[in-house]
């Protein structure tokens, strides 16, 4: 219990400290110490609750609910003020609706609520806590060095780093709160705080683009918040004593009753996880400094969205609504992956890949058989590590070469060998055997075959999975191509940055080796406790994959073997007179540089066309789910 309270409250306290101190050195020290403590507390939490299964807690602090209401109203007022100031009337309307719902809940419906268990912890919360507590804090440490360079390179942007780190730590606190709360009113409170934190962090630069994108994110997430509030109102009307507000109690109340709130919460999850048709906010969020993107994409925000859907997967399982939500996820996976092919901006590729993978997680959770929930949790873990590594690598490269375009990363293996290798590890972690994401996709295929209407998802995975091979490989190819124009750049990386990148790259590989352990000690007990049966990978396959990983790791050492005379020659240039630095004599006697550029296949995988299809499909499916739901309520 004390660990839970510490993890929620301590980051919040640190946040206020960071808001107060504007001194850079103090900030550095505070962030590092706090990150270390949070990481340590997370590990202690893991050890303490490793084998205890589900534990529910009462919070012996009665004023907590009142404090939360006050904070919620303050936040609403703040957003209202900003919305009116920036003339974003859609956001204003949404926040007014939501505040009215909130006042209705707090002042009227929730009067008789006797919530006993406000906090809980089980294996799934533990996994999420490990992701937030380890990856999230690593990103914070990285952000220290990053933000310093960021402000040197962008002198026009006002230095509001104290607000930046304040929001980041509030974000962490809110994430911990969200995953430890059993009471949906509490979840809702933390949910809204993550919305606010992402809004402020996306708009950090205060340019018109970042302000617009921040409001886009805000509006979409407020829409989800309204659905969340709707779910709470539904539950309170059904039972004014609030005995069904606890997630655990709601889950055990039976599918027939829990389905309506589950679908509403899933809708909120879909907006937060940026599935189509709401994907545009996450793509727009890349205007924020890169550590923010890393946070949003890997350990916070979008993971909160999929967390809530995976929680309610047992309720969605086997229902029409669940299938529709799964389809939203499935199509998001397919179209998101396809759009990533046509993008040359590295952050945009990462954004679409995140959207696609979240779609896959939701597809698993929406169909919701026990094997699929197991696959979904694996996906959450692997994705968080590899994606945070990739974002931080892109951020590092961007500061060094001044571009986030993949075409400009040509020959990175020569220019910045260490970062390039870590980027390769991250990319391999996203799509290659025997790394994490591929393992999850594989178990998802095997699980979908046995599910109802699973063939649709198998087809989606077969096509979508191959598509991901294309855009990741060509990115890898760009990095490893030994471009004769470039030479090694000076290694000016700060030790914090490097350290974080090393740790994350190490984790990406390590997790592939120890995931059977994580699966057997955390995921399988969780799935077993929810479904009464569980899935696991066969022993043979685990051994084979470990062997493949080992082989993959020793292969580079073959470069060290003494070889008898490999002679270096310039590449073949079709018989044109060419020089070794890749200039060739073109027609009319003009000397030209060779430039090589990847295929982006815009005609087939253009962003506009596919996004339109995705939006239409997504809206259509969600509308369908709502109609089915209304039919069920009536």
């Amino acid at each position, binding site marked *: 219990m004390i660990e839970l309270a510490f993890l929620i409250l301590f980051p919040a306290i640190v946040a206020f400290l960071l808001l107060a101190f504007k001194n850079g050195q103090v900030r550095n020290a505070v962030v590092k110490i706090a990150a270390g403590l949070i990481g340590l507390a997370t590990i202690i939490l893991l050890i303490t609750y490793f084998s205890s299964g589900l534990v529910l807690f009462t919070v012996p602090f009665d004023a907590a609910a009142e404090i939360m209401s006050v904070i919620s109203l303050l936040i609403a007022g703040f957003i209202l003020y900003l919305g009116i100031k920036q003339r974003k009337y859609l956001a204003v309307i949404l926040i007014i609706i939501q505040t009215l719902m909130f006042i209705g809940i707090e002042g009227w419906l929730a009067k008789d609520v006797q919530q006993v268990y406000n906090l809980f912890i089980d294996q799934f919360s533990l996994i999420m806590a490990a992701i937030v507590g380890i990856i999230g804090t690593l990103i914070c440490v990285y952000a220290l060095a990053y933000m310093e360079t960021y402000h040197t390179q962008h002198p026009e942007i006002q230095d509001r780093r104290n607000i930046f780190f304040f929001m980041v730590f509030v974000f962490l606190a809110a994430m911990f709160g969200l995953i430890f709360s059993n009471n949906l009113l509490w979840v809702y409170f933390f949910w809204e705080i993550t919305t606010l934190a992402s809004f402020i962090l996306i708009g950090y630069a205060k340019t018109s683009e970042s302000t617009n994108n921040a409001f886009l994110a805000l509006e979409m997430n407020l829409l989800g918040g309204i659905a969340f509030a709707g779910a709470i109102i539904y539950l309170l009307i059904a039972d004014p004593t609030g005995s069904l507000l606890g997630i655990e109690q709601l889950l055990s109340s039976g599918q027939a009753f829990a389905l309506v709130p589950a679908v509403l919460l899933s809708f909120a999850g879909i907006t937060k996880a940026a599935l189509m048709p709401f994907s545009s906010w996450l793509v727009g969020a890349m205007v924020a400094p890169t550590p923010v993107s890393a946070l949003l994409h890997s350990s916070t925000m979008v993971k909160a969205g999929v967390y809530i859907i995976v929680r309610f997967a047992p309720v969605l399982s086997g229902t029409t609504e669940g299938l529709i939500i799964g389809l939203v996820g499935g199509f998001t996976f397919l179209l998101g992956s396809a759009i990533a092919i046509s993008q040359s901006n590295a952050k945009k590729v990462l954004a679409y890949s995140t959207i696609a993978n979240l779609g896959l997680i939701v597809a698993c959770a929406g169909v919701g058989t026990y094997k699929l929930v197991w696959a979904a949790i694996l996906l959450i873990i692997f994705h968080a590590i590899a994606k945070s590594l990739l974002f931080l690598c892109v951020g590092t490269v961007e500061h060094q070469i001044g571009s986030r375009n993949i075409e400009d990363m040509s*020959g990175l293996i020569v220019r910045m060998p260490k970062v390039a290798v870590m980027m390769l590890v991250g990319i391999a972690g996203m799509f290659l055997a025997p790394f994490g994401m591929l393992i999850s996709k*594989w178990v998802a295929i095997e699980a979908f075959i046995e599910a109802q209407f699973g063939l649709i998802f198998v087809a989606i995975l077969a096509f979508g999975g191959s598509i991901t091979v294309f855009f990741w490989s060509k990115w890898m190819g760009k990095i490893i191509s030994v471009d004769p124009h470039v030479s090694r750049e000076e290694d000016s990386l700060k030790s914090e940055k490097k350290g974080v990148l090393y740790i994350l790259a190490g984790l990406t590989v390590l997790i592939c080796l120890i995931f059977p352990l994580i699966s057997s000690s955390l995921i399988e007990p969780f799935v077993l406790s929810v479904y009464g049966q569980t899935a696991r990978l066969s022993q043979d396959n685990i051994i084979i994959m470990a062997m493949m990983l080992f082989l993959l790791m020793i292969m580079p050492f073959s470069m060290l073997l003494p070889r008898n005379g490999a002679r270096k020659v310039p590449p073949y240039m079709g018989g044109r007179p060419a020089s070794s630095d890749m200039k060739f004599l073109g027609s009319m006697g003009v000397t030209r540089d060779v430039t090589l550029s990847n295929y982006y296949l815009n005609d087939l995988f253009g962003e506009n066309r596919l996004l339109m299809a995705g939006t239409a499909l997504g809206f259509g499916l969600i509308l369908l789910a709502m109609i089915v739901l209304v039919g069920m309520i009536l």
Partner: protein
Amino acid sequence: MMSPVYGLIYILLAPIAGGLVAGIDRKITARMQGRVGPPLLQPFYDVGKLFEKENLVVTRSQDLYALCYLVFMLVAGALFFAGGDLLLVIFAFTLSHIFLVLGAYASSSPYSFIGAERELIQIIAYEPMIILSAVGMYMVTASFFVSDIVVSSIPIVLYLPGVFIGFLMVLTIKLRKSPFDLSTSHHAHQEIVKGVTTEFTGPNLGKIEIAHWYEYVFLLGFIFLFFAFSIPIALLAIAVAYLLEILIDNTFSRVKWQFTLKSAWIIAGMLGLINLAVLYYLSGGLQP
């Protein structure tokens, strides 16, 4: 049960079988074109000669990628013949091809660069169909393990005719046969010089050739699975399928990548998926 012995036999004998297939291929192709053709063992002479040549590289890392391509092709094939999980085999197979693509990228040469891009397009063209084939086999035999599929007495091909035709279609891509030999080709008239293999010479090219032989045997083994209920029929089917591929190779001219991608996906989508959907429907939804 998985049996590593068969995997080992594959590692030892597949190059011989694959080289012979390549030799027969060249002989028949030559006859179709009205030539006498090289001796049956010509592929072995060629590869032997490659290993005697000087190793010319643009960058040293090409050695690594060529070796990885060969090694992971061995892993994929050995896993297949040892009776492993078909999906894992397919993923290892993809991994090995990614190394070939990376090797082509590494040299930063215009011809191999285009070859690499095209090879990637070929990968995304054929991979869905191969995965759907594995899924189809699971739906018929209720197992992903090759060791279970191969002992099944069910005539798989009768349940999966559409999938089989789709597989033959992507086999044309995989064997680098015209009209789909976009990234590299065994013909002399390759339009982008030698595509992915442009910058590989000597021993590295030799490794890639040997990897191709391993790949031949693996792909023909995949055809075997469709007919595993009867070994004579299976061998006949493999022979007929391969002859068909040679015939296609010599009668069609090369198409653009757009056509390759679209036709492979449409065939996988139409024949493969409809076949699976019918099977799914007939088996009553395949509930666990």
